[in-house]
């Protein structure tokens, strides 16, 4: 087992590992991710021999079991990788932006906005397939972001506290309106029951490709604001003294956040805990350095998501449990254990 040695970064800061240890940790995380990716293709609700899995990937034929690998497990694994990475970075961004270690990507009302838009699509417009939900979910998240940005604007610029409050309020209103629509429309209720659980089953890769450019832009934006967010963690005044433009950083961070959460939710529905828990773990490993936190979150969140999904495929055989439910079951105890540590990963 590899342990990470800690060193003091200076008075008042948490103990953090050195750069070499961070790199080593990241490599180990990548190896773990690779292992989970392989397991995700190997393990499913039906037993398929490893040789068939190998042939399905490298010697494709019309064998019926090979279709299970190429048509279901492989797309599902890629969806889990993309959605997990997006949620992980989104969680890191929102926690840095709000300086709140308990902030979740859903706190700005983005999940609620996406859910409400999908409810409207199903209940009022008769949209019935997952591909149809996608753009509504994305649009819902974007519209809520604009509302939160508008409501969060103060004379001093964007206030994280006001934005969070606005997000909570907008989210509450939309959840209420969505529930009302679902209760009066059985079809919408049925569709939302499934969508709200958060799942990566039955999502073809055709859903992922159109979202990827948005996620790529979001990742670039996240990396761009990582430095300013580091400075802002010490307080607005110090950040301004270091030349950080607070309003621009916040707006860019929120745009990145919206693209990440909107994209992930559009594909898989709302999945909680990955975005809350993974940045904690990342911060615990690398300390308060946003670029490293983002890098670790990109790798660790898909590990959590795919491991949860694999668990969900086998614990209720022959049926499955949506990954959103398993993630909460797995994530909650781990998070509790983490926050009970004496040196919880503060910001």
């Amino acid at each position: 087992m590899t342990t990470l040695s800690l060193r003091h970064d200076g008075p008042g800061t948490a103990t953090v590992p050195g750069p070499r240890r961070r790199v080593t940790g990241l490599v180990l995380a990548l190896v773990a991710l690779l292992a989970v990716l392989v397991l995700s293709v190997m393990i499913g609700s039906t037993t398929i021999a490893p040789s068939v899995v190998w042939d399905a990937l490298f010697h494709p034929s019309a064998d019926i079991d090979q279709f299970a690998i190429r048509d279901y497990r492989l797309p599902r694994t890629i969806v889990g990788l993309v959605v997990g990475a997006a949620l992980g970075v989104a969680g890191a961004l929102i926690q840095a932006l709000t300086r709140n270690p308990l902030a979740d990507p859903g706190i700005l009302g983005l999940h609620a906005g996406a859910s409400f838009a999908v409810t409207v699509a199903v209940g009022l417009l008769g949209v019935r397939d997952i591909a149809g939900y996608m753009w509504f979910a994305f649009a819902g998240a974007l519209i809520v972001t604009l509302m939160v940005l508008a409501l969060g604007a103060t004379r001093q610029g964007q206030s994280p506290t006001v934005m969070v409050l606005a997000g909570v309020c907008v989210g509450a209103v939309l959840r209420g309106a969505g529930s009302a629509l679902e209760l009066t429309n059985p079809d919408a209720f049925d569709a939302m029951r499934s969508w709200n659980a958060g799942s990566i089953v039955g999502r073809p890769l055709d859903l992922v490709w159109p979202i990827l450019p948005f996620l790529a832009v979001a990742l670039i934006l996240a990396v761009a604001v990582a430095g300013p967010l580091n400075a802002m963690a010490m307080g607005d005044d110090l950040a301004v003294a270091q030349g950080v433009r607070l309003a621009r950083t916040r707006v860019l961070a929120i745009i990145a956040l919206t693209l990440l959460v909107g994209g992930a939710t559009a594909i898989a529905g709302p999945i909680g805990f990955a975005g809350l828990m993974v940045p904690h773990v990342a911060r615990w490993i690398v300390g308060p350095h946003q670029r490293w936190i983002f890098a670790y979150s990109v790798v660790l969140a898909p590990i959590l998501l795919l491991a949860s999904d694999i668990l969900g495929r086998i614990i209720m055989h022959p049926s499955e449990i949506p990954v959103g439910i398993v993630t909460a079951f797995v994530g909650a105890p781990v998070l509790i254990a983490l926050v009970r540590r004496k040196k919880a990963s503060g910001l």
Partner: protein
Amino acid sequence: MHKTPLARRGTALVAALLSTTLVLTACGSDGADTGGTAAGETRTVTGGNGTIQVPADPKRVATIGNTTLPFIDMGGKPVGVTEVGASELGLIPAEQKATFEAATNLGSSGDQVDMEKLAGLKPDLILAQLPGSEFEQIKKQLESIAPTVFWGLDVEWKALADGVSAAGNVTAGLTEQKAKFKDKIAKIQQTYGQIIGATKFVNVDRWESSDPGTFSIADFGCVEIAQGDLGIDFPRAAAGADPLGWTALPFEQIAGLSKYDVITYPVDAAGRPKAPFAPVVATNTWKALPAVNSGRALGVFCPGNNSYGPVLQYLDSLDTALATLPAKE
């Protein structure tokens, strides 16, 4: 003007008393005005809620839950109905749909009945099939409005049809429907007896409410008639276990259907895969199934299984499908 907490409580109390008085007044006037009771003649019928005195010739029947479509199928014209899913409504004949749409909408489901609206219709009979726990919550309210006959979800469709027919006095078409049903069963058993006896069938389905990427081996609905009345060998749940159809199976388990000789799957009236099932037939796994490749995947139309009309349509469709079954090599 600001009110003190005491004054507010007083206002609320007065409002509550007025509301209660209004509701009691409305309920009290219903019993006296019901047409059937006014005519005086009554019959005794038995439902899941005991023995009930109902009007001999009810004129204003409200149907709740699963009684709506069977009652309309037998020629009944309800004054009030609870909602029926768009997918089910799309499968019934146009004149029956018109009858349904002419009735007052009482709510989205049995447990969401608008009691004020129901009382306002002044029904002389209420027919209800819904989960027993839901009925218990509204039983007193329903019975205070009109004689109510209830059936639980465990009641077999033929018993429900008989019960609805007897309580709603729509027996005219039932005898003829029953005779047709008996003839059809006999004809299918006679024509396909050998195939039925030597073939492993499986019935698969998918609904609007199914999770994406999942399907089910369905052992309820029309397939129960094929199992029970025709003796076709379809998979069924073990005694006491949940129906197989309740388990959502991921698409990768479509390959598991290879072990069956014949697959039946749901189609619409035009013979196309039912919209929610279309994603299944589009998969490569489905296309690679031996039964599909050998013409033994049979699309069967099931417009409903709660009364004889739709069941006869199902049997016609099954008859036609079985006729296409190539002889086993």
